């Protein structure tokens, strides 16, 4: 403003005494601020707490860390050994039985059904009591051997035209004291339009005789499609050599099909080959059972036991295939927890029952004083007393034993042993109060996946935190020296980091692990090897930024040493971005560790999260809940760490706010 303008102002008349210096006679010293002083960190903290998503992420990280520490301590489940009966239990939480998820049930599709089960159709390898609701059954075809298959035929064909073909079963043990009939059901291939000629033999090895006797059952002129031959035993016994010591022989059934003229292949459908015993329907050596599959003709050995006898091409080159084989499959809802821990039949000794009686679960009379524990009759009588006294409607609802339906007395040892056939609640037998439940299910080793995931998370976090702190220390030292001194030292150090940083992380990890094995310290070393370069670069640029500032110069002119300048003036001011980049390093390390596990070079001995995840990757189709739960945890961790890191960055450098 010029003087001319000043004249335009109207200066009010003011008394001179009104102008008094407030501090006229006071000694002026430094006064305390009336407002509270704030530090760089406090200010950053205040800004950080305003960022809601970062605060939420911090809580999530804290929660995951607490789980990672306390789940392995308080969860008693075994995650080191393999427990077969607990394999692949789906996720379940007690009380969620009727919800859509965590109900512990799974939908099973397309399972083969055993139609011959005495209690009605039953899906093979599943427990009847654990099937929830109805079984939905449907007809399906099969192309491979199954003892639950029906119908169909083996199509036997020679590979070359004008060639014969032979087909033979594996040895079958037969007692010739019985009488056997043979039924053969064959059909020609319509495409070939020629009825095949064939022969059917039994190659018999009598005990004690060296020579194998060949008994012709049908000869080469046979062209029928179905025929029975009564009493093949007599035919075989007629060939019995004198030196034979027994009538229990080993025999192989053999087929020969001849080629039907020029440009015809020897080919035949074998619908059935039945060897039956007409006198004894209860315990026959072979029973009608339609075959199944190109190499196996199934023959029933006894009523219950099905044995696949292998048939092989023996003469010429040929192929066999299964045509029109049928099988029943089922879809149903299954409760594997019920199967593993629910009601089941068990044999329990008297001692066990007495234990449960002592604990008050069941009641039965005491052992009478006039009875002797070494007398079989007394033990039997006591068994009957218990059976008579046991009232299954009156048992305690917490009782491990819910029914006793029989007993047996074993007399082999020095004293008779009383065993009871019981129906038990298995989880009570195991000493649990309720049906166990696994929130994330169990993995292929029957281990609680929830504990496995959080134990692994602990390992991964530990690795991440340790590696990040070591990286910060190395990076800080390296970056400060490089940035503070600059010049030639900086050039040299920069070239070294450039070369180290040029090696792809995966190459560094692989090389170190190949040389030193895959233990925890080696992983730590591998993560530190090139991990510090980022921190070093950030530190260096921060040092370049602050080292020429006036306050540093002022301190230097006052005679401060290098170490004082670095640690007292430059570092505290530049710590924000360094800290942020170090926090963001942790998820990077966890991610790298998981990646290397997926590539098959994971930690050994200590299952990290990556190792557990990659192990369950191969069950992605059959048991997707394993990978899903683990992946959700690792994703949650990564998202939280990123949000947390972004919040920190914004807090330390408000000018970057909103820039992501």
């Amino acid at each position, binding site marked *: 403003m010029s003087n001319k303008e000043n004249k335009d102002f109207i200066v009010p008349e003011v008394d001179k005494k009104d102008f008094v210096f407030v501090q006229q006679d006071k000694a002026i010293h430094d006064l305390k601020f009336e407002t509270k002083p704030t530090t760089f960190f406090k200010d950053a903290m205040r800004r950080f707490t305003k960022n809601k998503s970062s605060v939420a992420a911090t809580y999530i990280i804290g929660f995951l860390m607490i789980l990672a520490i306390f789940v392995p301590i308080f969860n008693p489940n075994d995650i080191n050994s393999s427990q077969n009966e607990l394999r692949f239990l789906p996720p379940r939480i007690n009380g969620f039985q009727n919800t859509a998820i965590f109900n512990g049930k799974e939908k099973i599709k397309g399972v083969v059904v055993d139609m011959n089960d005495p209690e009605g159709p039953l899906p093979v390898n599943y427990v009847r009591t654990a099937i929830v609701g109805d079984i939905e059954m449907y007809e399906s075809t099969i192309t491979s051997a199954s003892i639950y298959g029906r119908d169909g035929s083996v199509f036997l064909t020679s590979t070359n035209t004008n060639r014969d073909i032979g087909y033979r079963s594996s040895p079958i043990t037969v007692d010739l004291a019985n009488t056997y009939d043979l039924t053969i059901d064959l059909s020609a291939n319509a495409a070939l339009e020629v009825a095949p000629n064939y022969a059917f033999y039994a190659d018999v090895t009598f005990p004690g005789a060296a020579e194998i006797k060949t008994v012709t059952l049908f000869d080469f002129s046979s062209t029928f499609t179905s025929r029975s031959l009564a009493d093949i035993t007599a035919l075989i016994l007629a060939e019995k050599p004198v030196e034979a010591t027994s009538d229990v022989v080993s025999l192989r059934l053999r087929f020969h099909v001849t080629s039907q003229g020029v440009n015809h292949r020897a080919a035949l459908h074998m619908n059935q080959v039945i060897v039956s015993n007409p006198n004894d329907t209860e315990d026959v050596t072979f029973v009608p059972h339609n075959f199944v599959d190109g190499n196996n003709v199934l023959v029933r050995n006894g009523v219950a036991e099905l044995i696949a006898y292998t048939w092989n091409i023996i003469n010429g080159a040929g192929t066999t295939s299964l045509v029109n084989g049928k099988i029943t499959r089922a879809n149903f809802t299954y409760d594997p927890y019920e199967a593993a821990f629910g009601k089941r039949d068990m044999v329990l000794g008297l001692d066990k029952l007495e234990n449960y009686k002592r604990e008050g679960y069941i009641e039965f009379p005491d052992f009478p004083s006039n009875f002797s524990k070494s007398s079989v009759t007394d033990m039997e009588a006591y068994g009957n007393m218990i059976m008579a006294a046991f009232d299954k409607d009156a048992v305690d609802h917490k009782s491990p034993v819910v029914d006793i339906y029989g007993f047996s007395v074993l007399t082999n040892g020095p004293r008779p042993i009383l065993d009871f056939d019981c129906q038990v609640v298995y989880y009570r037998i195991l000493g649990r109060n309720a049906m166990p439940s696994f929130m994330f299910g169990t993995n292929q080793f029957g281990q609680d996946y929830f504990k496995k995931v959080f134990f692994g998370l602990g390992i991964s976090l530990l690795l991440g935190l340790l590696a990040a702190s070591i990286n910060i220390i190395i990076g800080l030292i390296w970056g400060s020296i490089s940035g503070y001194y600059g010049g030639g030292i900086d050039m040299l150090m920069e070239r070294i980091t*450039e*070369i180290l940083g*040029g*090696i*792809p*992380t*995966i*190459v560094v990890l*692989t*090389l170190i692990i*190949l*040389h030193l094995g895959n233990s925890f310290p080696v992983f730590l070393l591998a993560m530190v090897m090139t991990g510090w370069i980022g921190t070093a670069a950030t530190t260096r640029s921060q040092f370049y930024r602050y080292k020429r500032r006036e306050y540093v110069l002022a301190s230097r002119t006052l005679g401060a040493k290098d170490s004082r300048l670095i640690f007292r003036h430059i570092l505290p001011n530049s710590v924000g971005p360094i800290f942020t980049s170090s926090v963001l390093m942790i*998820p990077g390390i966890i*991610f790298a560790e*998981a*990646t290397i596990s*997926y*590539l*098959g*070079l994971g930690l050994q001995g200590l299952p990290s999260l990556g190792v557990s*995840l990659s192990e369950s*990757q191969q069950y*992605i*189709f059959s048991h*997707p809940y394993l*990978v*899903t739960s683990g*992946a959700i945890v*690792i*994703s949650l961790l*990564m*998202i939280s*760490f*990123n*949000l947390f890191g972004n919040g920190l960055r914004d807090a330390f450098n408000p000018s970057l706010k*909103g*820039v*992501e």
Partner: protein
Amino acid sequence: MWKYVLKRIGLIFLTAFIILSLTFILMKLLKIDPPPGQVQVQLAFFNDQVRLGYMVKLNHNIGNIADYIVNDNGVYHYYRIVPVMQQYVNWLRNIFLEWNWGVSTQIKINASAMDIILEQLPVTMRLNIIALFTSVPVGFILGIVAALQKNRPADHIISTGVMIFISIPSFVVITFLMITLSYGLGWLPTQWPSVQLDSTTKFLGYIIPISALSFGTIAGFARYTRAELTEIMSSEFLLLARTKGLTKRQTVIRHALRNSMVPIVPMIIGQFIGILSGSMILENLYGIPGIGRLFVTAISQKDYNVVMVDMAVYTMIGLFATLLVDLSYGIVDPRIRMGARK
């Protein structure tokens, strides 16, 4: 500029030379397994090693000095590994004079490791390039939308998605895509289709790998574009443009977008390295016969020559991508003079 480029290229070759030398020495310190199987195959391998100068043939084995013994019908052949530094010198000679990178010992016995890599490289490159070309425009558009709609629902949705996809590890994405699209719904093949299958299946087979590779990159581009554009949108020259009467559309397209490209173009190249390393897991999980899967197979089968060449390829791609990133700054923005003195 040209001087700078040449200097950088020279430096890159020097860096690559040092890295590969270190890698070679470290790899050679691991004991190599001779190829399994017939004696003739083994002899061919050992004789090749002798010719390349990595082993010497001994006439006797007095004092058990041989590292490998081959029994050819009673005739014993003894081979001894030469010291590592001597092998290193021979290796340099083989590479510079013959371009000989050694043979595979397990995967494809006695085939050149370089040939095996070159055979599998196209699949990996094709996937990565397609993924890059799909993710750049999508990410760019999402970023622009988010920046222009800043703090409105569209921005919140995009930003949340970006945060999630940047954080989630790629194997999780692949796994979820496989669980839902392949196993659950059955729309896509559960594995990389083999060569014999029809072209529809082959086309469908590309969907999961491309999406798995793209998601992270799209998120990265969107985030970066949004950040750059937001910053530029609040700058003075845009205000000036508006005040002189341009519509918002004109200012965005003519001024904001062009300026925000400066850091984004180098990032495209930078992402390429990211995709390449991400595809290693993908190739393993989806059964794609590329160099990433080859790398893992080679390590698990201890086929160290193949591992070596594979590492060399990854290193070289990484180094050249870094160079391109640096150079592209100068090309995109003429204000930046790379290597210029102050």
